[in-house]
């Protein structure tokens, strides 16, 4: 299975790395400094990666407190198993994978993937609408949000994970989403196409 096989017009030079590389480089740098004995390195690692973990974990529809528990357990696992991380460059991926696994397990008991047509799941749960949105932001912001929010659940989750992660493990993602391994790439392509159409229809772009 190729993780990089889907080039199409418009792909930037970043290829399959959706997240700006700075985050992952900072994570590696913090980890290295911490291992070398500087406690501030751990602080920096936590500061740069916690927001990423939040979005990955929340893609599984966990409550605030359940998401926090998952993230905290992820950090405790990192501290306790730091010697198991042989390649510091991979620390960001180790963290997101660990968090995703735990999030899936936490959410999993009840949301075992069932073969429902994903389009039928659209709008399954209403998202809380943005009371906080100022009137100024409304126009463009709401249109973009409506387009993302209106995607089928499977697409919402997949795109959120892919957007915040660095090279997610497709095999695990496939298991978690109840999809055949080989279909993640094409599904991501279809989800992006749906988003593109939704954005155009919404006049968001």
């Amino acid at each position, binding site marked *: 299975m190729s993780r990089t096989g889907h080039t199409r017009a*418009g792909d930037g030079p970043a290829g399959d790395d959706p997240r700006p590389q700075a985050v992952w480089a900072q994570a590696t740098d913090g980890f290295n400094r911490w291992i070398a004995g500087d406690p501030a390195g751990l602080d920096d690692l936590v500061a740069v990666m916690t*927001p990423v973990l939040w979005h990955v974990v929340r893609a599984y529809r966990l409550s605030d407190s359940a998401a926090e528990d998952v993230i*905290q357990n992820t950090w405790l696992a990192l501290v306790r198993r730091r010697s198991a991380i042989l390649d510091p460059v991979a620390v960001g991926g180790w963290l997101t994978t660990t968090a995703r696994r735990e999030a899936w397990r936490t959410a999993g008991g009840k949301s075992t993937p069932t073969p429902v047509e994903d389009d039928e799941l659209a709008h399954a749960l209403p998202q809380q609408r943005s009371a906080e949105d100022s009137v100024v932001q409304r126009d463009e912001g709401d249109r973009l949000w409506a387009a993302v929010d209106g995607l089928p659940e499977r697409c919402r989750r997949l795109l959120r994970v892919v957007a915040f992660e660095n090279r997610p493990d497709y095999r695990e993602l496939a298991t978690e989403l109840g999809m055949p391994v080989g279909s993640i790439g094409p599904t991501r392509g279809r989800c992006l196409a749906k988003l593109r159409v939704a954005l155009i229809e919404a006049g968001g772009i």
Partner: protein
Amino acid sequence: MTELSREALLEIVRDVWERHDPVPDHLVATMQAAAALAATDLDLELMELVERSTELAGARGSTSYTLRFVHGDTDLLLRIAVDNGRSRVDGWIVPAEPMTIRALPGETPAAHEAVTTDSGRFSLTGLPVGLMRLQLEPHDTARPAFATPTFEI
């Protein structure tokens, strides 16, 4: 209209989620504290938990229980009482020895400390509930500090 690239679309997805489901304000600081606490666990000599009693819900929803830790020749007995979302720790060190006891709760490090009495007793009050660890610092500086493992009140 130009066709949006995958990069541009994923950028939109990130922006939208960052605005509509933002990271809670306290989250980074809380996680830094939890990670730092776990990391110091690695460096300090740890006491061993040898006994734990679950007790008795008291009147009006208060609960208390005891924990016993040992480290070398030192025994530490703790009675922990939770009432109204705050906790109180009464401790007894045997053999009695002058020490400073610091509570290291997850979110407010080093805010609570006590010194043992001649009989080896101490108490810490008004502690938050949650993850907690006690660090024991003998006043005899030839003796290294040690700590209980993290436990949850």
